[in-house]
């Protein structure tokens, strides 16, 4: 045969073979679609595989001491497909199921539940939410044993939908500050402000639907693992928060006030230790955390007399006045243009010093002084407000911070009366947090730090972000002015409007504030009372502000309403915080001459050296080989003096802990009897006395 024809023939044979294969493929497609079609379609519905979202676990929120403020726990929504259960199962179980549901939820009768389920069953409703209340894991386990439900999803139609829910171990403690996040990703507080860290990143994984309607993950290399959220470490102190909330609540109830808030801050660091916000519940009795008045827009109000601190600061800084200058407050009224400034005291204070004016919170004195010295150039006054940053938002870590409002000289609404009234805390708006920041700066010797509530963001042991204290202004005023302001604030408590909270144990410094509330453009007989200050006044550790809005009753001034809350909080913190409490804080272990480092009296040289080296305490030892030493404190170090125990005499065990003393003495063949706790103070047989076997030696520890 011709080569070409042979080749062409062979190619055609091969082609036919391939065409047959193509035919087979086509046949198989048709077979899959039309013969096996139903089987595969059913399979696609029943054994469904799906890439499903794997939710990342939301991070926790911690208090400063590591207690949990918020964490995520699984909860379940109880849903039923009432059609699934077979008639006999349904009929046998429905009555007891309805009874169990009713006695579990306690909101509807068994009959109502029965009717609800039966109705859904007859109308063909396949997704019946039995109750909106979500249940915990333990209850879910129990519930799945109930009649009908125990037949599972395919037999009983029970569906437990897992919902991850935020759980707050301390319930409502600082609830508005810890905050929340709703399903639209909107919310308040830390939960909202730090959501991008808390939420993590959801992953995706291949799941197979298994009997019972649950999804079983199938191992697949193409999974995207969820990235769990970061934990947020706050500066909140659970104890102080608790104290602040309960003290505030008591006073609110007492005065039947509208709302109140408390902020406690650590002076040096600006760490917020507590934020309490309580508001009268609209519909029911009692108070709840409904809004963060301490920080948010609604907390913006005319600050009242606490603002006088700025006015005095401006006057002192300008060098216009001294604390002992005399001001004439006359009969307690003073006319600025068409408005009359009034003092609280009927008939006025007469001639008083500047210090007295501040302590008594004389509106006339302060406004007169400010108008006198700044009236011609109000912008110079405003420059002081700007200098301390009161006119700008703080840039606080929580979102929704209220922006302060100040009129500006030269603006349409700047009248001749604006400056005098501004000087006593009207015509402007500040949040309590802002006012506190200013008072904290005075307590901190003029250094203004930015308040902070989150100190670190971390996952496991890895710290993602650490927040340091931010200094807004190294010094808001001259040292002299700051000293004067501190003296004034102490005076308020010692002799002035807050005399009622004077304490003999430690000193409080602060200022009361009472502002008439401006409602619909008119000043009313409702007050906004506050007290801002710090303690202990001589070495400030904490600053705080207490605000109580619209107290009812006879005494509606800051000194009577807010200051006692401040005092209660300060007392409790003072009692808790040993560092503040000097009398008990002085350690008895401190020996003569040294109070810089822990004093070690005696022990084994190698151990003591190791301990001291670890702590960076310089120590010297000249002896050799001697195991036991006594310490001789030097100016900045410790000298070890050997304390030989090898001799056949009674060794000197004074200063040793009991364990060591027992070891040393019993090795000598002595029998030890002891009283007390701590290190050896006295021994009944003097050192150097020859040892007699089985002699009893008495030790006094202390």
């Amino acid at each position: 045969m011709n080569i070409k024809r042979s080749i062409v023939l062979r190619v055609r044979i091969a082609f036919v073979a391939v065409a047959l294969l193509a035919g087979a493929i086509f046949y198989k497609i048709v077979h899959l679609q039309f013969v096996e079609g139903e089987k595969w379609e059913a399979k696609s519905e029943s054994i469904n595989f799906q890439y499903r979202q794997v939710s990342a676990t939301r991070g926790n929120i911690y208090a400063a001491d590591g207690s949990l403020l918020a964490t995520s726990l699984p909860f379940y929504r109880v849903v039923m497909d009432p059609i699934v259960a077979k008639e006999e199962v349904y009929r046998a179980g429905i009555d007891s199921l309805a009874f169990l549901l009713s006695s579990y939820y306690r909101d509807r009768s068994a009959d109502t539940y029965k009717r609800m389920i039966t109705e859904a069953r007859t109308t063909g409703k396949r997704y019946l939410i039995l109750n909106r209340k979500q249940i915990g894991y333990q209850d879910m386990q129990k519930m799945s044993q109930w009649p009908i439900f125990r037949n599972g999803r395919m037999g009983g139609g029970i569906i437990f939908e897992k919902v991850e829910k935020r759980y707050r171990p301390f319930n409502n403690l600082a609830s508005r500050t810890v905050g929340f996040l709703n399903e639209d990703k909107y919310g308040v507080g830390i939960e909202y402000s730090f959501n991008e860290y808390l939420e993590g990143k959801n992953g995706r994984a291949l799941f197979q639907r298994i009997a019972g309607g649950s999804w079983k993950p199938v191992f697949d290399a193409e999974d995207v693992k969820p990235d769990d959220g970061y934990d947020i470490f706050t500066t909140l102190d659970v104890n102080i928060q608790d104290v602040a909330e309960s003290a505030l609540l008591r006073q609110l109830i007492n005065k039947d006030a509208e709302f109140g808030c408390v902020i406690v801050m650590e002076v040096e660091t600006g760490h917020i230790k507590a934020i309490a916000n309580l508001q009268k519940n609209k519909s029911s009795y009692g108070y709840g955390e409904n809004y963060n008045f301490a920080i948010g827009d609604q907390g913006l109000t005319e600050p009242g007399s606490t603002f006088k601190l700025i006015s005095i600061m401006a006057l002192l800084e300008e060098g216009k006045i001294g604390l002992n200058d005399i001001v004439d407050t006359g009969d307690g009224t003073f006319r600025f243009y068409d408005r009359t400034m009034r003092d609280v005291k009927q008939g006025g204070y007469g001639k008083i010093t500047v210090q007295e004016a501040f302590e008594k919170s004389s509106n006339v004195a302060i406004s007169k002084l400010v108008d006198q010295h700044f009236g011609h150039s109000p912008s110079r006054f405003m420059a002081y407000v700007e200098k301390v940053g009161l006119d700008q938002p703080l840039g606080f870590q929580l979102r929704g911070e209220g922006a302060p409002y100040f009129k500006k000289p030269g603006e349409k609404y700047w009248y001749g009366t604006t400056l005098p009234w501004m000087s006593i805390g009207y015509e402007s708006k500040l949040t309590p947090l802002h006012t506190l920041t200013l008072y904290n700066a005075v307590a901190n010797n003029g250094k203004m730090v930015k308040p902070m509530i989150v100190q670190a963001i971390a996952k496991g042991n890895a710290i993602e972000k650490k927040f340091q204290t931010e200094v807004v202004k190294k010094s808001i005023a001259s040292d002299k002015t700051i000293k004067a302001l501190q003296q004034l604030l102490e005076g308020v408590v010692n002799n002035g409007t807050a005399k009622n909270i004077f304490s003999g144990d430690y000193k409080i410094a602060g200022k009361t504030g009472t502002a008439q509330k401006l409602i619909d453009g008119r000043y009313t007989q409702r007050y906004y009372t506050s007290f801002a200050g710090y303690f202990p006044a001589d070495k400030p550790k904490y600053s705080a502000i207490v605000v109580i809005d619209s107290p009812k009753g006879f005494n509606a001034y800051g000194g009577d309403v807010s200051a006692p809350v401040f005092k209660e909080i300060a007392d409790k913190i003072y009692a808790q915080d040993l560092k503040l409490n000097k009398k008990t804080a002085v350690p008895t272990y401190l020996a003569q001459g040294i109070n810089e480092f822990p004093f070690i009296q005696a022990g084994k040289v190698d151990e003591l050296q190791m301990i001291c080296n670890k702590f960076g305490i310089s120590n010297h030892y000249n002896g050799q080989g001697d195991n036991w030493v006594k310490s001789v404190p030097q100016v900045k170090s410790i000298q070890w003096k050997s304390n030989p125990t090898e001799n056949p005499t009674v060794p000197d065990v004074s200063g040793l802990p009991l364990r060591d003393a027992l070891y040393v003495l019993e090795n000598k063949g002595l029998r030890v009897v002891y009283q007390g706790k701590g290190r050896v103070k006295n021994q009944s047989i003097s050192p150097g006395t020859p040892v007699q076997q089985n002699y009893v030696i008495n030790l006094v520890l202390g």
Partner: protein
Amino acid sequence: MMASFKQWIDRNLKGDPIIWGIVILLAIISILVVYSATGSLAYKKTGGNTEKYLLDHSMMVFMGLIVMWVAHKIPYKYYGLIGKFLLLISIPLLIFTYAFGSTVNDANRWLTIPGINKAFQPSDIAKLALIATLASLLAKKQKNIGDFKKAFLPMIVVIGLITMLIGFANMSTALLLFSTCLLLMFIGRVPAKFIMAVILVGLVFLSASVFLGQRGGTFFSRIEKFVATDEIPFQAEQSFIAISTGGIAGKGPGKSEQRNTLPHPYSDFIYAIIIEEYGLIGGATVLFLYLALLYRGMRIVASSTKPFGGLLSAGLSFALVLQAMVNMAVAVGLGPITGLPLPLLSMGGTSLVFTGFSVGIILSVSRGDHSDSMEGSGEENKPRKAFQTV
């Protein structure tokens, strides 16, 4: 306008216009389906930027077409030589890749070209080179094709060596290439008794690669899974669901649901996605396009004047279409899962360029003018005589 376009086509796209048409049609289908099928891959790897794969893939398709155009410009007589040269290069490349190449699914198959950062499979080169070399050998030995020592032995040594090297890392490709070579030998008139012997020799070599190579375990487990019919592997099951839910007209472009669960919907199982989205009609069309491509490749054999051209064209056409058939057969459940991509359709990066190259060679043979010019030169008349002797 149309006239000038046609003129441009006539001037620049030489060779069988039907092959050009089929390839361009397949390229368009490829871009459409790959775009749809890479949805879940894009979601996972790029955070939802699905255009990334669309652009990457379109780029490679375009590159493939360029290479095809360049290849069809080169007179096919040079491909015998080029084939031998590439074959010599591919041997060290295969060994190097086996030892140091990057790993995808536990097999070293890819080698990254430094500089442009594109990975390619040396087995793609080896495949092309082996077929060209085999076609050339077959053409030269037509006179004494029955001679075992002179004609048959050199061929089988080359085939055995190359397929064995490929088989170390990629058993499916090696097996398919080996079968294609057998088919080409059959077409090239090698006596049946030799081919039977080849199968025996091949089995020896293959089993050697299986036991020495990386993928032996996978290879056998796949065969085992296919034979044990009661256990349908996950991929196959998902593929069947895709095919059966596609129906006659399909769910529509971009409407695939199975792409989310079917592994490698853009390569190994792209045919299932085509049927799911374009239905039985789409599936049959693709099947038909491959058959048509093979048919046109076969026609070149009949029209070519020299055995080398015909055998080269036939070899490359069969290699391409056989792989396509095997891929589609796997998708519909006619064979064990191989992991072979669907040539011209799958997203396969540089593989598309090599496929374009081989179609370019087929087109080069299909241009009558190259062989005419050779006749004009007068020096290559001997093979023609040889063609007519027996």
